[in-house]
C-alpha cells in the first residue's frame, strides 16, 4: 500500500511539473487542438457529401458530423506521446536517465500523459458541452447518467490500452534502434481501425469484425459508442473485458521486451 502511495505521489509530481511546462508553451496547446480538428473535418466532409448523395448509407449526414466531432475530441483525450517520445530517447541514448532515476519510467510517462490530457480537456470542454447540447437538441443521441459513468470507465481503460501499447512498441527500439517505418504502420492501423478515418460501422463487415478484437477500437471508437448509447450493456461489458485483456497482454509483452532488450541498449545515441 505504501509503495502505491509513493508511486501516486511521484505521478502527481510529474503531472504538476508538466502542467507548469504547459503554462510556458501556451501556443503549443492551441496548435495541438487545431491540428487535431483539421483532419476529422476533412474526413467528415467526404462522408457528409456521400451521405447527402446516397440513400443506403447507414449513417445520416448529421450523424456523421456528430461522430467526427466526438472522434476529434476522443483522439485528443486518449492520445499518448509515449511512443514518439520514448523511441527517440532510446535511439539518441537519452533513455539512460530513466535507468538511473530511483523511480521508473512508467510513473513518469503516466504523469506526463495525464497533464497533456487535463490541459487539453480544460481547453476543449466548453466547446464539447456546446456541441453536445446542439447534437442532443437535434435528437441525435440520448446521453444518460449511466452512459456518462460507463464512458468514464471506457476512457480510463482506453488510456491504459493506448499507454501500454505505446510503451511496448517504443521499447522495440532497444532492438532495432530506428522505428520510423513501424511508426507509420502503427499510426495507419490506429487511425483506420480506431475509427478516426472512417466510422467503423461503415467498414465492410469482415473489417468491422476484425476491429472488435484489435486494441485500436477501444482507444477511440468504443468510448464514443458507449457515450452515445449505441451498444448494449452486454457489448459494453465485453468491451471492458477485452480492454483489460489487452492491458495485461501489453504489460506482459513490455516486461519481456524490456528485460531482453535492455541488454542490447548501448546508451550512446545513433
Amino acid at each position, binding site marked *: 500500500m505504501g509503495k502505491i502511495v509513493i508511486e501516486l505521489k511521484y505521478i502527481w509530481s510529474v503531472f504538476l511539473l508538466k502542467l507548469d511546462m504547459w503554462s510556458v508553451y501556451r501556443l503549443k496547446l492551441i496548435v495541438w487542438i487545431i491540428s487535431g480538428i*483539421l483532419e476529422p473535418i476533412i474526413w467528415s466532409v*467526404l462522408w457528409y457529401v456521400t451521405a447527402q448523395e446516397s440513400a443506403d448509407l447507414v449513417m445520416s449526414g448529421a450523424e456523421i458530423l456528430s461522430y467526427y466531432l466526438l472522434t476529434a475530441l476522443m483522439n485528443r483525450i486518449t492520445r499518448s506521446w509515449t511512443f514518439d517520445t520514448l523511441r527517440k530517447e532510446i535511439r539518441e541514448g537519452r533513455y539512460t536517465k530513466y535507468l538511473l532515476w530511483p523511480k521508473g519510467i512508467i510513473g513518469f510517462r503516466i504523469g506526463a500523459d495525464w497533464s497533456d490530457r487535463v490541459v487539453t480537456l480544460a481547453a476543449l470542454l466548453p466547446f464539447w458541452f456546446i456541441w453536445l447540447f446542439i447534437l442532443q437538441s437535434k435528437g441525435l443521441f440520448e446521453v444518460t447518467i449511466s452512459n456518462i459513468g460507463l464512458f468514464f470507465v471506457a476512457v480510463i481503460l482506453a488510456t491504459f490500452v493506448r499507454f501500454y501499447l505505446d510503451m511496448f512498441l517504443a521499447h522495440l527500439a532497444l532492438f532495432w534502434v530506428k522505428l520510423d517505418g513501424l511508426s507509420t504502420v502503427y499510426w495507419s492501423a490506429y487511425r483506420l481501425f480506431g475509427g478516426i478515418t472512417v466510422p467503423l460501422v461503415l467498414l465492410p463487415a469482415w473489417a468491422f469484425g476484425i476491429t472488435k478484437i484489435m486494441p485500436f477500437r477501444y482507444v477511440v471508437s468504443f468510448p464514443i459508442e458507449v457515450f452515445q448509447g449505441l451498444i448494449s450493456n452486454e457489448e459494453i461489458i465485453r468491451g471492458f473485458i477485452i480492454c483489460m485483456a489487452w492491458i495485461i497482454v501489453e504489460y506482459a509483452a513490455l516486461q519481456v521486451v524490456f528485460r531482453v532488450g535492455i541488454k542490447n541498449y548501448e546508451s550512446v545515441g545513433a
Partner: protein
Amino acid sequence: MRKIKVWIQFVVLYLKQFAVYRFDMLFRLFSMILMTGIMYVVLTLPYEHVDEIAGWKKNEAILILGFYYISNGLAWVLYRTGISNLESKINSGSLDEVLLRPVGSSFYVSYLEADVSRISDVLVGVVFVGINIGGMNLTVGVLEVFGVVLSLVVGVSIVKCIFLMVNSLAFWTTETYLDHVASPLVVLTKYPVDLWGKSKEIFYWGIPMAFLSTVPAAILVGKLEWWYGIVGIGLALMWNVFAETFWRFGLRFYSGASR
C-alpha cells in the same frame, strides 16, 4: 547546378544512413504497401454507396489518389523531412551551423534530409495513374502531359513554401509542433477539392493545394484545360517570393540560444 550537386550529396548521405537501419528499411517498405492498401480501401469505400462524389467518378478519384502519391512522395523525397526538423533546429540553437554554410540557408534547411525511400510513393502513384489512364481509355496529348507535369511542379513547389512558412513561425514560438498544422492540408488533396462546394476556390487560388492532385487529374480527364499549369507558375513564383521573404524576416528573430 551547384545546388543540384549539393542535393545529390544529401541523397548519398541519406542512403548511407538508410542502409544502416535494415529493420527500419524493411518496415518502411511494408508500411508503404499497407498504407497504399488502406488508402485505396478508404477512398473507394464511399463509392459503394454512390456513383459520383462532387462530380468525380471512382476511376477519376483513384486518378487523384495517384497524383496525391506522386506529389506527396516528391515532397518527402525533396523537403518534407528537412523542413519538419526546422523547429527542433531553432529550439536547440543548431541553426547556427546552417547559417554558416556556403549555400542558401532556406535551401539547406529544406533539402538537407532527402527521404529517398519515399520514391516508392511516387512509383505507386505512377502505377495508379497509369492503370487508370488505360482503364478509362483516355487519349492524352502532349499538351495535356505538359499541363499535368507543370501542375505537379507548381503544386510541390507551393507546398514547400507553405510548410517552410508555417515552420518558420518557430522563430517566434517554441515547442509547438507547427508541422502538424500544415500536414492536414496535404491530407485533403487525397480527394477532389470540389468536395468543399463553393469554398473549393480557396484551394485553387488562395492556398492552391488543388495543384497537387485535383488539377493534374482534371487536366487528364478533360475537366480543366492544360494551360491551368501555366497559370500555376505565376502562383508558385508568388509563393516562393513570400516564403523567402518570410524566411529572411524570421531569421532576424533567431537568437541562436537554445530554449
